[in-house]
């Protein structure tokens, strides 16, 4: 992938916290070396590239540097070493007015602990970014009201953050980040405080939004189901480094490191793997009877796979043409777990 079509990219990005002078950083620097000098490497030698309209989900244990990475993307933190390019420009080299302009027009962010302004009502919080860029009062109130009803907070416009529940506050944060219609959207555990029902609703809404307007999204979550539902690619972080950045299927089927394998071991593969991934070229074998859609997960077509006695099942691509054949035994292994 070239840098031209990537919206955000970073090369050998480091973010090191700690006192005094920063140590010299190279690809070989280890976390232990840094710790010895009293430094913490929150982001370690990360190189990533995110395409326009792509959604990257960042996962990892608590403290693995997810929030820090996103903060570097938005230049809320200055990178210790390495560069972050946003739409082809080095964000670290931008002047303050340029940065402010970029954030006003292009970026939105949902914060892990909401970051709502305590002295403003929900409506005023959502309208805040619009106010900052000098939009007139009536239009910003209209827009903020619309955003609040989008996240299901109609009727709570006048409430202050301390009068709202955690989940409601989180939704105010989401509405605020959407108010400026950002092209680039950072979401730091945006659904963590929501109950399962609303969470599901918000995810659906989220997918709908994503389909409607091509936003480039970096999404942090601890929830694998959520990641699989939403992600184009998943990046798994450990101790500040990205262990693997790939499609959900490849993360599960072809883990790059042992850590990733362990991290994903508890996942129901059937929910991740799509029929297309198992299709092998037909090589002239004859196929008749019902075919399976390539983009369906095995979980969705489990009933058919189990009840169809043929050893090889045809898989059709989105355009209706034959993609290949799926080995039924292999599919059953994934759906039911390997035979004992």
């Amino acid at each position, binding site marked *: 992938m070239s840098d031209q079509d990537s919206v955000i990219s970073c090369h050998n990005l480091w973010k090191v916290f700690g006192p005094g002078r920063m140590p010299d950083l190279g690809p070989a620097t280890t976390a232990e070396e840094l710790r010895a000098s009293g430094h913490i490497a929150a982001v370690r030698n990360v190189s990533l590239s995110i395409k326009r309209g792509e959604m990257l989900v960042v996962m990892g244990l608590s403290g693995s540097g997810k929030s820090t990475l996103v*903060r570097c993307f*938005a230049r*809320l933190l200055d990178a210790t070493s390495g560069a972050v390019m946003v739409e082809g420009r080095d964000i670290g080299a931008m002047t*303050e007015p340029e940065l*402010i*302009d970029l*954030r*006003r*027009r292009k*970026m*939105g*962010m949902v*914060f*892990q*602990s*909401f*970051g*709502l*302004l*305590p*002295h*403003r*009502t929900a409506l005023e919080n959502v309208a*805040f*970014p619009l*106010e*900052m*860029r000098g939009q007139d009062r009536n239009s910003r109130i209209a827009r903020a009201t619309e955003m609040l009803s989008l996240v299901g907070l109609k*009727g709570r*416009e*006048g*409430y*202050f953050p*301390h*009068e709202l529940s955690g989940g409601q506050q989180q939704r105010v*944060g989401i509405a*605020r*980040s959407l108010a*400026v219609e950002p092209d680039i959207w950072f979401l730091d555990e945006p659904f963590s405080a929501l109950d399962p029902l609303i969470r599901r609703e918000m995810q659906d809404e989220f997918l709908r939004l994503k389909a409607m307007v091509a936003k480039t999204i970096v999404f942090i979550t601890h929830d694998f189901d959520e990641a699989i539902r939403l992600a184009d690619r998943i990046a798994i972080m450990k101790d500040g480094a990205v262990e693997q950045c790939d499609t959900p299927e490849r993360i599960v089927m072809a883990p790059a490191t042992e850590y990733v394998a362990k991290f994903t071991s508890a996942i129901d593969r059937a929910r991740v793997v799509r029929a297309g991934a198992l299709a092998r070229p037909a090589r002239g074998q004859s196929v008749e009877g019902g075919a399976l859609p390539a983009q369906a997960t095995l979980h969705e077509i489990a009933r058919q796979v189990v009840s169809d006695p043929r050893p090889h099942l045809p898989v059709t691509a989105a355009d209706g043409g034959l993609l290949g054949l799926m080995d039924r035994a292999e599919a059953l292994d994934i759906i039911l777990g390997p035979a004992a």
Partner: protein
Amino acid sequence: MTVVSLHAAPAAFDQRRTAQALLLLAALLTVGRNVLPDQLARLPEAMVIPFAHWINAVFAFLRDDLGLMSLTRAFSDMVEFCLDVTANLLYGKARWPRVGPIPWVVIAATAATVGHALGGRRLAVLAGGTFVWIALMGQWQWAMETLSVIVVAAPFSVLLGLALGTLAWRFRAAERVLNPLLNIAQSLPHFAYMIPVVVFIGVGPKAGAIVTIIFSVPPMIRLTLLGLRSVPPEIIESGKMSGATRWQLMTRVRLPAARTELLIGVNQVIMQSLAMVVLASFIGMPGLGQKLLQLLQALKIGLSFEIGLTIVLLAILLDRMSKAWAYRQPVHHAQGAAWVRRHPHLVVWLGLTAVGFALAALHPFFAEIERKQALSLAGPIDAGVDALLTVIAPVAEWLRWFLITWVLIPLRDAFLWLPTTAVLVFVAAIGWRVGGRRSALVCLGFVLPIALSGWWDRAMITVYMVTVSVVLALLIGVPLGLVAAARPQRAARMLLLCDTMQTFPSFIYLIPVIMLFGVNDVAVIAAVVVFATVPILRYTIEGLRGVPPELVEAAEMSGASRGQMLRHVKLPLAVPTLLVGANQSIMFSLFMVIIAAFIGTQDLGQEMQRALSSADVGKGLVLGFAVAFIGLLADHVLLTWSRGRVALLSSRAT
């Protein structure tokens, strides 16, 4: 932690050995006072450094050569203009805008409405009641003179504090310069502020307002810094991501998010202003303070009691109101609520004001209550006090005699007899004991200038009075705190009482003691003791309450009796907190001893009053710094000690 304590052990041992050696030296110097050369007992005259001359020279230079005079004049003119406006509105001074005085019923109604808006019915009653009381007792004019200054001084202080606090927050260098200055400023006695102001501005309400402004700025600076620092980072980041410029970030994110701390700062400013305005009577500031001073000097107990009550009521009212404001959380209104619904207090206030003006127009009683119409409790109070005094006179008389002849005079003579060098060595020993060589040097750095300033004997008298008072305060406060802390409810009630008493201007404490003991050293000590007991009581309770319950339970399970529990578990753990209380107590005592000087003491305070009346800046500031250094010395020793204890406790716990 164990590693740390292993390393710390030899150091602590050395520290103790050096301290003991120094103590021995101090003891030898004391014992051998009569055989040792005089130079060791008192530093020779030749060594006295003319600090006062230098300061006077600097001030003369500032005044005459730097054009500072015109700057201060511009500032004081601005303050004076504001003062004239409030004076006209509140008590009808013949100045622009010439619409006042506002009838007292309107002011009382305004206060009650504001009270209700901030703190509900109880605060409304307190606010309205206070002003009705002031009006009915015929103190309106004085109270308004006092308030008119606070109303002007407090906003100036707040703005100044905000500006300086923001500067310190923005620039590390500014903070590094301001911090020690604030430490000194907050331990300088009130009079030290008055003298330069008298030199630059003169006497009267304008000088009173300006000294009040300067005096009440430090806490606002501190709390601005604290508030700006404590805004959660995510809030700031969300502001940045919204595309806020630096200015927008400051005005719309940081400052509003630091609202509570800033308003606590406002509360402190108001309380400091009240304390200072009352004391500014010494530089010709009219109002409640001046009246109180005159009445006390004339020993009119009943009348001064009435004024004292007013000051206390105002203190409680201003404190409660500003705190309620600080802690108030915004509340939403039902959607589409009518304007009247959204602003109920404004509507009520408009109504009450209209009624008030109407009443005032109908009958002058509602506009202004003249002195002869006023009620007075002075007669009955005087009679009551007289009756009380005849009953307790023999006891009080005996107590006074006993204290003066057997405690105070011998102690004072002992303090004065101590050789200067012995005191210096002793202080170094204490410093070394609590914090090694560095602390010893810091402590000497505070005492040596006093010795070199030529005011040693006066300083020793101040130290003696403070020592006696704080020891008595400890003897009273700690047991009282133990009793109070035994029950949670009792503790809460006692803490509330302490909080309330701490809001009173120090001057107030002089009324009852003068009533009981007359005008002498015992009265001063008694006032200081009462004033100094409050923080000790408070920190004893808080220290005991802060003991972790699991430790208490563990001790209970080990079968500790109540006495054992107190001695071995609770008190040792409460000591660091108690030391903080003792530190505050010493500060309070110092201030009070200096203030009480007008009753007749022979310490630094008396000299300060002389410097004040002769407008001698150099002398006044030297004396002020001497007092501040005594306070800072105690502060350094006690806080270092307290920190050491905390470290010790936590290293043992692991």
